[in-house]
Every structure is written in C-alpha cells, then in structure tokens.
C-alpha cells in the first residue's frame, strides 16, 4: 500500500502526564479481549481452565503466530502479504515430495525453509523490483502458489514421515515437571528475535520509516527497497518454518492445508496495534493479540460453539478493537484541543 495513498489518520495527542500509559494503549484491546475470553471460557465450561490441555492444543496457534511475526514487519513497511498461507502449502508440498523421493527429513525440512524464502523473494521481485501494488500481487500469488502446491502434490497426501519427526507439538521441554510445549518456546524465541530486529537494529528503524513516509525515507538515505524485500523474504521464511511445524503436527502433507490462515494472521497483526497503513506496530502487540485470539477461539470451541459463529465473533472483535481505540483517541483529541484554547 503506497504511503501517499493514506486517508486521514487520527494522530495520538498524549496529554501531559499520560505519556507512560499511552505506550500501553495499543495493547489494551488485546489484553481486554484476552481477559473477557478467559472469563467467558471459565464461566461457560468447567473444562476450560485446563492449562495443560490448552498448551497441548497450542501448536496450530504457534503456526499462525509465526506467520503473523513476518506479516508484522511487512505491514509496518506499509505493504501486505496475502500469499503466506499458500506459501506454507508449497513449502510443505515440496518437503513431502522430497521425502518421498528419498531425501532425509532434515534436508527436506531445510528445503521447505528455502522454498518459503524463495517464494517470498518472488513476491519481492514483483512488488519491490517492479513497483507493483502489494495487495494485488499477493492476491495473485495467493492463487498462483496454491495452484502450485496442488500441482506438486496432485491428489495424494504424503504420510511417510519418520516417527521422530511427527508430533513436535506434543514435546514438552521440561517433561513432567511443567508442561512447556516445544512450539511455544520456539515462538517466543522467534518473537524475541523479531522484536530485537524491529526495535534495536537499523533494519527495524528502516521499517518504521519506510512505513510512515516512503518518499521522506528514500530522501533520508534509507534503503527502502532492501527493507521491503527483506521483510517479504523473512515472511516467506517463517511460512516455510510454519510448514515444517504443521507437517510435524499433522503427520501428513496435503495440498489444501492452511486455507484461510492468512486472514487470521492479518487479524492477529492488526489486533496487536499494528496500523494497516504502516509505520506503527510492535512484535509484543502481535504476540499479545495471538494469545487473545487463542483465548477467544479456545473458549468458544470448548463451549461447543460452531465454526461459523466463531469466525463471526473474531470478525466482531477485530472491528471493535479498531473502532474503540480510534474513537477514544479522537475524543481525547477534541478534549485536549479544547483545553488549548
């Protein structure tokens, strides 16, 4: 999304002594949703507060989280990537195909990462190299890559995965002492890495600047092309990693995995306070939002709520989470400008 193409955005005007609390504002919606969801879950089902069970089920959310981490960078840059889930499918399909061809699982998994990054690079060629709008390009590659995954795998599913590889989502780091699922640890690791990238490196600063005002950033000497391309490639890499994790969790590879995952990942990113127009957002916000979405879905599914209604509620939450802070900010703005007079 080009930066000179932004409709009017309300600016935050921090009042004198609320600067500290202003930092927390982007996370408030997610935290509030998390709390409400947990309360709802506890009230509506006696089985909800079973933390070990929830952690056991957390594998699929970790996959979403991995996609969301990459997407956070892309969206902060002012771009968008709708093709992440299809990217995941191709990476998984490649891994499966290689495995069937006799390649050892470790190499096949590495290949999945490489393929993921490669597909991200292809996106970058079109978007950064040719200057095409990211929304349309990734809409096209969403279909292109999904078709590719189906072409690679055809009808059949690959199931011949070695025992040691399957079920990584069930592995607990501290065994019986405390249930710490491996995927969650990996997610936190990735989150720390991405958080570091975003807040402590030049790359991170470039992301924010590129997202806020591309022209100004270019004139300031920021290598916006490199920044944007790196973000797409990192996202592709995370899609490949998520593919490996998903395959381990399911024990099989099919061509229609991850359908619709990209929308959920984008929901998580936006819910976490990242502006869809770019220039604002944090990894911490994305992670908190991920937990919020997890709490919502788990509390709903344990209360026997159907898929469509779950999706609809996530939609409501997304919209409310955007509308409420914006309204509050605009109200505060009006109040403080009144005070200035």
């Amino acid at each position: 999304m080009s930066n000179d193409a932004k409709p009017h955005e309300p600016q935050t005007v921090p009042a004198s002594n609320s600067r500290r609390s202003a930092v927390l504002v982007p996370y408030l919606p997610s935290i509030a949703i998390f709390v409400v969801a947990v309360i709802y879950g506890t009230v509506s089902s006696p089985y909800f507060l079973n933390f070990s069970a929830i952690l056991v089920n957390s594998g699929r959310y970790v996959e979403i989280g991995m996609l969301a981490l990459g997407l956070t960078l892309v969206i902060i840059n002012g771009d968008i990537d709708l093709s992440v889930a299809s990217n995941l499918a191709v990476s998984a399909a490649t891994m499966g195909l290689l495995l069937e061809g006799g390649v050892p699982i470790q190499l096949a998994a590495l290949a999945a990462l490489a393929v993921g990054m490669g597909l991200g690079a292809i996106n970058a060629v079109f978007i950064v190299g040719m200057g095409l709008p990211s929304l349309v390009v990734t809409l096209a590659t969403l279909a292109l890559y999904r078709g590719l995954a189906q072409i690679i795998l055809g009808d059949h599913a690959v199931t011949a995965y070695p025992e040691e590889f399957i079920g990584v989502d069930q592995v607990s780091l501290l065994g019986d002492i405390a249930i710490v699922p491996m995927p969650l640890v990996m997610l936190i690791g990735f989150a720390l890495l991405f958080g570091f990238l975003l807040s402590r490196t030049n790359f991170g600063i470039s992301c924010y600047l590129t997202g806020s005002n591309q022209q100004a950033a270019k004139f300031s000497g920021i290598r916006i092309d490199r920044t944007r391309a790196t973000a797409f490639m990192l996202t592709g890499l995370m899609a490949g990693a998520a593919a490996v994790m998903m395959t381990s969790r399911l024990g099989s590879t099919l061509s229609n995995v991850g359908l619709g995952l990209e929308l959920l990942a984008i929901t998580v990113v936006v819910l976490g306070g990242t502006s869809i127009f770019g220039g604002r957002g944090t990894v911490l916000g994305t992670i908190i939002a991920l937990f919020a979405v997890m709490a919502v879905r788990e509390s709903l599914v344990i209360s026997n709520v159907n898929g469509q209604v779950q999706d609809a509620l996530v939609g409501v939450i997304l919209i409310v989470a955007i509308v409420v802070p914006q309204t509050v900010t605009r109200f505060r703005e009006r109040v403080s400008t009144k005070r200035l007079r």
Partner: protein
Amino acid sequence: MRKVRRLTGIVALAASTTMILAACSGGESSTEETATEEAVVVEETSAEATEENSGEALRMTYIPKNLGNPYFDAIVKGLNETAPGLNMTVEVVAPAQAGATDQIPFIDAAIQQEVDAIAISPNDLDALCPSLKRAMAAGIWVLTVNGDTAPDCRDASITPVDFSQLGKYLVDLTAEVTGGEGEWAFLSATSTAPDQNSWLEGAAEYIAGGSSPAGLTLVDTVYGDDAPDKSSTEAQALLTKYPNLAAINAPTTVGIAAAAQVLSQSPKKGQIQVTGLGTPNQMREFIKDGTVKKFALWDPSLQGVIAANLIAGLQNGTIKAGEQVKFDVPGVGERTMAGADRIIIAGDPQEFDASNIDDFDF
C-alpha cells in the same frame, strides 16, 4: 533500551506464569504420549468404563464435515432420536469449512471436555490421526461415521452401505436410466475425497472386469469440488465436450443437484440423464419435472441410530470391539463389526423415483 527490557520482562513473566499454572493444574497429561501410540486395549477400557459409569449420562460429541448439510442433519436426527433412550447426550459441532484440518480444534476440545465418545465424519484420512489417537489414549471411544480415516485412528467405522460394492452399483444405476447404452461421465466431489475415490476405483474395476453392461462407455471423470458453481460449470462443460453424452452420474449431493439444475434449464433435458447419489428433498423437483428418472442414496439416520447403540454397548461392556463381532441394534437388526478394520455396514442403498419420492423428508 527500555522497550527491550519491557519486552523481555513481559515475555518472561508470561512464560513463567504459564509454566506455573501448567504445573499446578491437575488435568490429563496426555502430552508425553506421542502420536504413534497404539489404541488402548479393549479389555482395559471397558473395565475402566464400567467402573466410571455409575448411572451418569454418556456424553458423545459428533463432528460432521460441516453444518447446514441436510445429509448430515439426517445422521444427527438418528443420533438425537436414539440417544435419550440410552441415557446419552449428544453434542454436535462442526467447522465453518470442510477443510482437511478444520475439525481438529473440535476433536481437541472434546478431549478436553473428557467426553465418553467422539463420532466424526472425517474430512481427511490422515491429518486427524494425531488428535484422534490422543483421544483414544485418553480413554475416549472414537467412531468414524459415513467416511473413514486410517484404521488405527479409530475404534470402529460405520459406513452407510457397502462401499466396496458402491462403484459397481453406480455403474448399474447408470445402465438402468440410460437403457444400457451410451457415453456417460462421473461428476465427483473433490479429487482428494477418499470415499469418492474408492467408489470411482470400484467402478473402474467393474468396467475393466468385463461384466459391466457392454453398451456403456465411461468417457470422463470431472470434479465439482462440492461447490455449486464449480459443479455447474463442470456439468455444462461435459455437455460441451461430449455431444453424444447419454448420462451424468454424480455420486455427491451437491454435484447431482447442480447437474440436474443445469439440465433442467437446458434444451437437452430428458435427453441426457442425470443420476447418482442425492437427497430426496433436494431432488424432488427434478423427479417431478422429468429431469431425473431415478437416483439413489440410503437412509443416513440409520448410521446415527447404530452409532448411538454401539457406543452405549461398548461403554457398558455388552459389546466388545473386535475383528468379527455381531451385535444387535434395537429396532434395526443385527449388525457386524467386520474385518481387521472393524467396519460396520449400516444398510443397503435406497432408490428414489417418482413412485416414492414423496415418502421421505431429508
């Protein structure tokens, strides 16, 4: 610097809180058991079950492919009618889309809810296995209804009719409506659906075997993906590709309705026959306007009745899961859990035509 510190601090806090809570929580710790563990031995489970079952209602969760499908509603009807009499409650939940992995969260939730049994109409052969095996390891009965997964992921499977014979049945059905002569094509669902593929293979074997009606020629198999618009497009394309087409056989409720709709609005109505598997309510209009002479299905609710009785029997020990077990279903008759894969056939196909179309409601 402050930001990083805050970030690390919050993450550490969250991680440690989670760990503490997890350590403190009672709950079933089925995490150490890997997905490859074998199904629980029958003897142990039924003994355990009779201990626990002190008059409390049995809890079963049924997970169809998705909701809003009249076919699965009929299965649910069968379950709901039988369950109260067996001191059983049934919870029906389903995902929004019929994707391969969309049912997994619901299986996991059922495990978390410590239900007694899970019945599922699976969307995939293998992807559900890790969760289903965890369910079995937790002492939950797992039954597949109307479709199957890999055999070691469930205790038993109920198929509506003998799937191994259904391919042949479909070919013969085509012969009946065309008078035994002509070119015809299959309009299937998705190319990855295991039950569809087993029927198509059965049909191919029957045709290759040489005992199928000689005048019939199967010219094509196309896939409508269980989507109305894709199925319509494929049906229309068949008419264009094969000008001498005599029949379309769609063994899927979405496909047959789409093909029938296309033909009923086309000048070739009545010339090209539409048949296959469909629900009476959806097809009634087409029987009445002459587009479809005859189609078939079976009574899906029968599977629900059998499923409820089977679970009740397994739980209180009157039925033992095994390779060749006969059991009686009140009001239905005797059924057999057959073969190493423990498959139960619910009944026989039912044909629908103008003479009986009004007698059914599903």
